[in-house]
């Protein structure tokens, strides 16, 4: 097949009408032939700009070169040097604003589908039973990692490869962090992708102890002083949901996106054979415009609801990935843009019966140059809904910082850590990921886990 160098090889997806009714993965990914064709579009730039766009600096031209030759195993070895979770990143990285935004191909045509190629390589490796190489012997030095999200998994994997004895402590009953409880099955399959990436980390010798809440079950000081750990990495994420503080917000039928998604993803409420219930709703309003809002909206749709996204700015300000917004629209999510909630209307039994909103318009640009929305007088109206999902962002949980002497946080409760090596204000304690930055991305959390692994090694060699 002749490849049009300006255009991407299209990726196969489930039809919108079909996928709107199931929880299977939306994007089906490339097969080997498609991947090899797409790889021919890469110019193998000497000074590859795409690498600069990747927070973990994957040697993109090299791995794509191997895909082009059909040597997928080697392509996987190249990616593995940089990333512990390629099957995840290939799926959920905001590539359009990272690696692909810098691709030379993007100047005249469409950038190379770096993410889809990365995903193909990682999936191929899994299907062919290829695992990362475990170290031959450990050095007997114990390191504790708190949280099993992308930051913790990456830090643990790198330290294990360097010979350390690593134990991850996870508060929930399942490892993975947001990958397990937040991002839905239809974007990131739990069993095939997440569980097997976690198995890979375990196969390096990392132990994962679930059901341990640091700050409650034990503390960082106890890990260091009583349990024989020489250093600790904190990758506890930013899990605390925000609410709007408007009237009616505690009514039955109002959920945080975290609750809604956790019930469905981690607790598998969509599957009748699991005990956890979910009120899917018939007509659902999702408040917010980020990735989390899209995930909550598309989950509600799959549970059978009519779904409205209520967002106070316009389409171009939506913080969600373009691909997610596009998918959501294809599936039939209704976007009520430039609309802001004022109150949740509650019936006498305490259940949601509607949401009162006001129309917004974009005002003059403020100091930062961003046009902030202002209310249009007299435009208040009620949208009939029976469920409201608040997706307004999250912040770090103070559980760890408040129980660890000498661990400094900023005014948003984010742990203060050195970007270069993860070092915190407390000797022997390192941190990274959402716990430090506030809610960000998978790949940034991985990058921070990697930097901290290096920082911990240097600290322990002293």
């Amino acid at each position, binding site marked *: 097949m002749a490849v049009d160098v300006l255009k991407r090889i299209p990726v196969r997806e489930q039809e919108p009408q079909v996928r709107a009714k199931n929880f299977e993965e939306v994007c089906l990914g490339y097969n080997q032939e498609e991947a090899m064709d797409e790889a021919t579009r890469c110019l193998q730039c000497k000074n590859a700009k795409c690498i600069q766009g990747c927070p973990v600096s994957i040697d993109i031209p090299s791995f794509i070169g191997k895909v082009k030759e059909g040597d997928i195993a080697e392509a996987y070895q190249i990616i593995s040097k940089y990333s512990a979770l390629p099957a995840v990143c290939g799926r959920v990285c905001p590539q359009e604003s990272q690696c692909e935004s810098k691709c030379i191909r993007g100047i005249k045509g469409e950038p190379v589908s770096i993410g889809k190629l990365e995903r193909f390589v990682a999936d191929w490796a899994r299907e062919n039973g290829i695992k990362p190489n475990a170290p031959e012997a450990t050095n007997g030095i114990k390191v504790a990692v708190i949280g099993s999200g992308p930051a913790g998994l990456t830090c643990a994997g790198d330290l294990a490869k360097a010979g350390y004895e690593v134990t991850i402590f996870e508060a929930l009953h399942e490892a993975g962090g947001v990958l397990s409880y937040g991002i839905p099955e239809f974007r990131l399959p739990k069993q095939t992708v997440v569980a097997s990436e976690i198995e890979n980390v375990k196969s390096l010798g990392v132990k994962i102890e679930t059901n341990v809440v640091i700050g409650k079950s034990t503390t960082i000081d106890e890990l260091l002083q009583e349990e024989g750990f020489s250093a600790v990495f904190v990758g506890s994420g930013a899990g605390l949901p925000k609410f709007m503080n408007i009237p009616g*917000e*505690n009514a039955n039928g109002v959920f945080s996106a975290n609750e809604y998604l956790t019930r469905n993803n981690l607790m598998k409420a969509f599957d009748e054979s699991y005990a956890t219930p979910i009120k899917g709703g018939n007509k659902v309003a999702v408040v917010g415009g980020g990735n989390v809002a899209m995930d909550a909206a598309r989950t509600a749709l799959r549970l059978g609801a009519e779904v409205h996204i209520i967002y106070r700015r316009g389409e171009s300000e939506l913080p969600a990935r373009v691909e997610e917004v596009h998918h959501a629209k294809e599936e039939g999510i209704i976007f009520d843009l430039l609309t802001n909630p004022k109150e949740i209307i509650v019936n006498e039994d305490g259940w949601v019966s509607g949401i009162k909103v006001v129309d917004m318009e974009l005002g003059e640009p403020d100091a930062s140059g961003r046009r902030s929305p202002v209310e249009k007088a007299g435009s208040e109206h009620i949208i009939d809904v029976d469920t409201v999902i608040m997706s307004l962002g999250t912040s770090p949980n103070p559980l760890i910082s408040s129980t660890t002497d000498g661990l400094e946080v900023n005014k948003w409760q984010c742990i203060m850590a050195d970007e270069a090596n993860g070092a915190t204000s407390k000797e022997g304690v390192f941190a990274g990921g959402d716990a430090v930055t506030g809610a960000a991305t998978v790949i940034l959390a991985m990058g921070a886990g990697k930097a901290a692994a290096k920082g911990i090694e240097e600290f322990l060699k002293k």
Partner: protein
Amino acid sequence: MFKIVKKQYLANNIYLMDVLAPRVAKSCFPGQFVIVKMDEKGERIPLTICDYDRQAGTVTIVFQSVGASTKIMAEYEEGESFRDFVGPLGCRSELIDEEPEELKAKKILFVAGGVGTAPVYPQVKWMKENGYDVDVIIGARNKDLIILVEEMKQWAENVYVCTDDGSLGFKGNVNDQIKDLVNNQGKSYDLVVAIGPLIMMKFVSILTKELGIKTIVSMNPVMVDGTGMCGACRLTVGGKVKFACVDGPEFDGHLVDFDESMKRQQMYKTEEGREVLKLQEGDTHHHGGCGCGGN
């Protein structure tokens, strides 16, 4: 896996279990709770820590089988294991962190309703072990629903049992019993700790507000993670939204919005759970008394 090392039937579908969970046993205190997930497909079930043995590494839970999940839990036998058992969650009782002299000077009354007697137990035990004498009321609709009286007597100065139908102890609900102690028996208290069905805690709080006695209640809203991540457990206390799993579960009873919490508690429940709640709450909204009595 977390092994059940002892199982005992107490009364009225209420069971006691000692579960081997060394990390929890080592660090828990009265007032805190655990979350149990029985197996792969189970839901996360919050249960108060009712006792603990730091040496043996065991934690005692007491639960009433009221709905789908707690029914299955009742079928677990000694020697079997739960897949997940996480804790201790929530804050420990404020009493534990009070200055000893201040605590010594206080007269404290614990009020336990139905299965709520179990979470009262470790607090009373802790008080006695640390040299403080307290009074306890155990109330229920009838004598078959009264639990842990002998156990409680080991640690409490006085245990007052009351039943709505008079089949055991004083005839009347826990509020009638409180009034009798204060008005007729010359008792006076500086603090009441009330744990039981929401409706009981609500009416005890109304009474103690009239009597001018500070009151602590233990809230049990629907929970998912129990670590502050989902907000399912939110409630209003003194006009502010709190997450019971991290800010509580104990709060000032005079500030809690009980009516909101009672509505929220209805949100998810199986048919069996619905029946039980109906029994607990009965008609009590109308006659204004405390239809306490647990179940």
